[in-house]
C-alpha cells in the first residue's frame, strides 16, 4: 500500500528541489548560531519563518492529502487562476503542473552546452567562446543550415566585439 505513493514522490524532481532548499535553510540556521547577536537575529527570524513553510511543502509532496489541503493556499484563492491553468499559460509561477513536462534528457544536454560555453570563456576568453558556442550550438543542437549558423554567428560575434570590446572596453580574458 505504501510503495505506490512513496515511489511517486521519490521519482519527482520537485521533491529533491524542495529537499535541497530545506538543506540550504537548515545550514544557514546552524551557521547563524555562531554569529554575534545582532548579526544572527534577522537571519534566524527569516530562517525559522522559512523552514516550516518548506517542510509543509515537502509534506505535501509526500502525502497527497496534505497537498490537496495546501491547494487552499494557492494564488488561485486570491486570483481565480483555474482558467489560466486550464489554458496552459506559461507566465510567472506556472505551477507544479509543468513538473510533469520536465524533459530531463534535454535539460541535461542544454546544461552541458551552456556549461561548455562557460568553460571555454574561462580558459580562452569571451570572443572565442561566443563564436565557437554559437556556431556549434546552432549547427548541431538546433540543426540549422551551415549558412544560417555562419550568418548568425558572424552578426552576433561582430555586435559583441563592437559593444563589449570597442565601446565598453571589457577585457576578453578575465
Amino acid at each position, binding site marked *: 500500500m505504501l510503495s505506490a505513493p512513496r515511489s511517486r514522490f521519490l521519482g519527482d524532481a520537485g521533491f529533491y*528541489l524542495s529537499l535541497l*532548499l530545506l538543506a540550504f535553510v537548515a545550514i544557514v540556521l546552524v551557521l547563524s548560531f555562531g554569529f554575534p547577536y545582532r*548579526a544572527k537575529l*534577522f537571519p534566524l527570524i527569516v530562517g525559522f519563518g522559512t523552514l516550516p513553510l518548506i517542510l509543509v511543502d515537502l509534506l505535501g509532496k509526500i502525502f497527497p492529502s496534505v497537498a490537496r489541503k495546501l491547494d487552499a493556499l494557492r494564488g488561485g484563492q486570491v486570483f481565480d487562476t483555474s482558467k489560466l491553468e486550464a489554458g496552459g499559460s506559461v507566465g510567472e509561477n506556472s505551477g507544479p503542473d509543468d513538473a510533469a513536462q520536465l524533459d530531463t534528457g534535454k*535539460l541535461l544536454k542544454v546544461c552541458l552546452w551552456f556549461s561548455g560555453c562557460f568553460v571555454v570563456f574561462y580558459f580562452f576568453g569571451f570572443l572565442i567562446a561566443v563564436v565557437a558556442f554559437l556556431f556549434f550550438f546552432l549547427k548541431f543542437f538546433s540543426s540549422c543550415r551551415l549558412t544560417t549558423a555562419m550568418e548568425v554567428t558572424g552578426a552576433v560575434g561582430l555586435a559583441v566585439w563592437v559593444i563589449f570590446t570597442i565601446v565598453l572596453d571589457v577585457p576578453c580574458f578575465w
Partner: protein
Amino acid sequence: MSEVVAAILPALSIFADGLTWVFFLLGFVMGLVFGAIPGLSGAVALALLIPVSWGMEPRQGMVMFAGVMGAVAFGGAIPAILLNVPGTAPNVATCFDGYPLSQKGKAGVALGAAATASCLGATFGILWLVILIPAVRLIIMKVGPPETFVLILFGLFAIALFVRGNTLKGVCAGGLGLLLAFVGFDPVTGALRYNFGTMYLYDGIRPIPVIIGVFAISEAINLSIKGEAVAQVEISSKASDVIEGVRSVFRHRMTLLRSSAIGTGIGIIPGVGGTVACIMSWIAAAQSSPRKAFFGSGEVEGVIASEAANDAKDGGALLPTIAFGIPGSAEMAVLLGAFILHGLVPGPDLLSPGGLPLVWCLILSLFFSNILVSSAGLLMARHLAKLTMIRGNVIAPVIFCVCLLGAYSIHLSIYDAMLALIFGFVGYLMTKYGFSRVTLVLGLVLGTKAERNFHLSLMMSDVGGWIFLTRPIALVFVLVLVAVVLIPILRRLKRGRL
C-alpha cells in the same frame, strides 16, 4: 510663475544648438541599446557617459544623461515582451503579460501599449516632479527606518500573495531570497557571514547576475528545450495591431493613472526601486480589474500598468536626487556622480534661480527622450514583432551569450558569469516547480536594506519592536499587510471552503 518661465527659457535655448541634439541622440541610442541588453542597465550607460560629458557644458551633459534615462525603460520592455527576457530589472513585471501576448501572436498590441503607456507614464511622473519639487522635503522626512522596513516587508508579502501560483512557495522563495542577501559582511556589526571561505562572497551575492540568471538565462534554457518559436500562433504584423495597443491605453485610463501614481510615489522613496514599483502597480491593476483572472496570461492592462509605473518612477526618483542629493535608484546614484563631476551641488543651490535652468534642462530632455523612444517604438513595433517567429533554439544561444557577457562585464568578474549560469538553472527549476522567481529576487535585492532598517528601527526605539505600530505611516502599511493576508482567508471561510 515668472521664476519658472525665467528658468525654462534658458533651458530651452540650449536645444537651439545642434551639438546638444547630437549629445541627446547619443544618450538616447545608448539608453535604448543598454536597456535592451540584460545586465547593461541605464546605470551602466550613464556611468559610461560620465567621462564623455567631461568638457561639455553642464546643461549639455544633463541633456545627454536624460536621453539615456528616458530610453532605458522602453528599451528593456522590448525583449521582455518579445522573448520573456527583461532588459532591466523593473521590466520583470512587463514579462507577466507582455510575453503571453507575444505567444498569442499579439506582440504588436503589447509593444504599442507599452510605448504609449511609457510615454504617458513618464509625462505623469515629470508633471509630479515639477509640482512636488517645493513640497518634497516634507515627504522625505516622514519616511524613516521603521517605515522603510515595513514597506519592504509589505512589498515581499504582497507580491508572494498576489503573483500567480502557489502562495506558500512564493513566501518560501522570498525567505530564500532574504537568506541569500545575508551572505557577506553584516551591515550592522561587520561580521562576515556564510561566505564558506570564498573571497568572492565577501561582498555578498550580487543581485544583477542573479536577476540575469533567474529571468534571462532560465528563459534561454526554456527556449532551447522547447525549440519552437515564441509566437505559438501566426503573428499579425499589421499596423492595426499597434494602433489597437495604443487605443487600449486610453481605454484603461484609470490603470494608467493609478500605475503612474504608484511609480512616482515609490520612485520618490530612496532605494525601494523600480522593480517594486512595477510589480506593485501590476498587482494593483490586477486586483482592481474585472478581468483579474486573465492577468498573467496576456492581459494588455498588465503591460500598461508595468510600463507606466516604470517610466513614471524616473520623475519621482529625480526628486530626492535634485532636492537632497539622496539618489532614489542606481541610475540616480550615477547621475549624482555626474553632478559632482560638473561641480553641481544638489539641494538649495540647484533649486535656486541660478540652478533651476539646469534642472529644467534635465526635465525637458527626459520628456523629449520619452516622446522620441515611444514614437520610435510605435514605428518599429510591427517589425520587432516578427522576432517572435524565430525558432526558440536559434534565439536562445544568442540570449545566453549576451546574458553571460552582461553579467561578466558589470564587475569584470568571471564568478559573476558563473553565478548567473547557476541561477539560470535554479530559475528554470523554480519555474517548473512553481517557486516564484520574483519574490526570490526581491528578497535578495531588499534583504540587506530590510535588515539594516530593522536594526536601525530597534536602535531608535524606546518600545522595542512596537515601534512598527507606533508610527502612523508604518502602522498603515502593517494594517494593509494584515488585511491583504486575512481577506482571502476570511472570504474562503465565508464560502465554507476552508
